[in-house]
């Protein structure tokens, strides 16, 4: 196929795409260092980059790395353990699809399900509430995800949930983890691409303090191939010009203040608290826990969660070789993992990054980005 034909498959405006690709290449060359490394923090961005083969449009010397942008992947083992323990205590659990297969310290919800526990997959908290209303038995929604799903959990709680319904919150908040990744001693990250839909909630203003503190530019990007290309072209310009600012390249969805109505509900229900993100680090203010006013909805306060039984099992030897944490910190890519595509595949994943449709390893495997040389 001709170059023009390939461009047409990816971009709705091929002339603009060609122009942006050229500008991107020119700016990276002007920076004169290799590689120039930037990080995005969103599984949907990685999906779009991989799905539309955008890396072939990026200059060789530009390294576009996916950071901790997969909410399923960064849910820590002890959080999964809590859900597994509750399920094994006979409490019905509902959660978003990929969470079921994510391993805890020793078991996943799927393992508990195989042993007879009741676990439902839902696509929204609304569906979990509808299931809970069908009976009086205790029902726990294992809530995971970043700002975009946390606001839905908050709104549902504020709208009123049945008395047998509780939330086990593993919700996470993206802005604090960018600080930690930027400060990692081995970090090569010179700029961030922020996720457009999370920023729809928080507003782009949330990144201004980060940019001031770290001197690293942030560009907010949409999810269209053209949006991503435009954001990267702008980001490398800011790097070249040593201009640490926040730029909003997704104005059709993102404003400086963000969705204030959603933010009000988010912070009415949740308070930020420090906690571990799987394989990465303790992230101050990175976790969202239910405020005291909502103790009656908080599974951690309503149930005694007995984790002892899980401590008897150790993670498998394979799981100990998993480098998900380094991948999500931007220090390694999946093809640098010995398990990738061999012992670790979507049908029998070793680590969380191969489980989730938003995990770097799963996306790379799916779209054949890197294959382990046999």
């Amino acid at each position, binding site marked *: 196929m001709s170059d023009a034909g390939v461009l047409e498959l990816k971009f*709705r405006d091929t002339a603009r795409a060609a122009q942006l690709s050229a500008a991107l290449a020119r700016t990276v060359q002007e920076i004169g260092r290799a590689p120039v490394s930037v990080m995005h923090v*969103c*599984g*949907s961005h990685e*999906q*779009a980059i991989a*799905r539309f083969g955008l890396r072939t449009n990026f200059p060789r010397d530009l390294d576009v790395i996916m950071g901790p*942008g997969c*909410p399923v992947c960064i849910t820590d083992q002890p959080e999964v353990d809590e859900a597994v323990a509750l399920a094994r205590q006979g409490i019905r659990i509902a959660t*978003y*699809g990929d969470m079921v297969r994510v391993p805890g310290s020793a078991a996943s919800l799927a393992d508990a399900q195989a042993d007879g526990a009741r676990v439902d997959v*839902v*696509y*929204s*908290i*609304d*569906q979990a509430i509808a299931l809970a209303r069908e009976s009086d038995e205790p029902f726990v929604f294992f809530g995971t*995800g*970043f700002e*975009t*799903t946390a*606001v*839905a959990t908050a*709104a549902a709680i*504020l*709208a009123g949930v049945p008395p047998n319904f509780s939330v086990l919150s593993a919700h996470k908040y993206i802005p604090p983890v960018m600080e930690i990744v930027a400060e990692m001693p081995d970090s090569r990250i010179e700029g961030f691409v922020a*996720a457009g*839909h*999370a920023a*729809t*909630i928080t507003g782009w203003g949330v990144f201004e303090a980060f940019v001031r503190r770290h001197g690293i530019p942030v560009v907010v990007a949409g*999810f*269209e*191939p053209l949006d991503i290309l435009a954001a990267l072209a702008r980001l490398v310009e800011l790097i070249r010009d040593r201009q640490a600012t926040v730029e909003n390249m997704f104005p*059709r*969805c993102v404003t400086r203040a963000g*969705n*204030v*109505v*959603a933010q009000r*509900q988010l912070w009415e229900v949740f308070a930020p608290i420090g906690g571990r993100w799987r394989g990465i680090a303790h992230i101050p203010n990175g976790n969202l826990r239910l405020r005291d006013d909502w103790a009656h909805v908080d599974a951690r306060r309503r149930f005694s969660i007995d984790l002892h039984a899980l401590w008897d099992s150790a993670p498998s030897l394979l799981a100990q070789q998993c480098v998900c944490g380094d991948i999500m910190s931007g220090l390694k890519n999946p093809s640098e993992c010995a398990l990738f595509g061999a012992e670790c595949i979507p049908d029998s994943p070793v680590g969380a990054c191969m489980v989730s*449709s*938003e995990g770097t390893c*799963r*996306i790379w495997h*799916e*779209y054949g980005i890197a294959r382990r040389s046999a």
Partner: protein
Amino acid sequence: MCLGVPGRVIRVEGTMALVDFFGVSRQVRLELVDEPVSPGDYILNHVGYAIRRIPETDIEGTLAMYEQLLREAESDLMAADVQGELRGTRL
């Protein structure tokens, strides 16, 4: 789970809207959207909630990628996530 899916509002009843997503009608909750929503408006749905009213001038650019993805089989990872977003809404 970060992608969301845009749709066109058909009817608004209190805090619920009936929304057309590329030919599929579903109920979406409105508690989180920060602007008034009326029939004909486009919203971005995320796990069953509208989180943004999409300005009229930007609708075309927003829809193009989804039209392409929704033509794909669910065996495509990204297309499957978009389908998942539709399943998060109410029938």
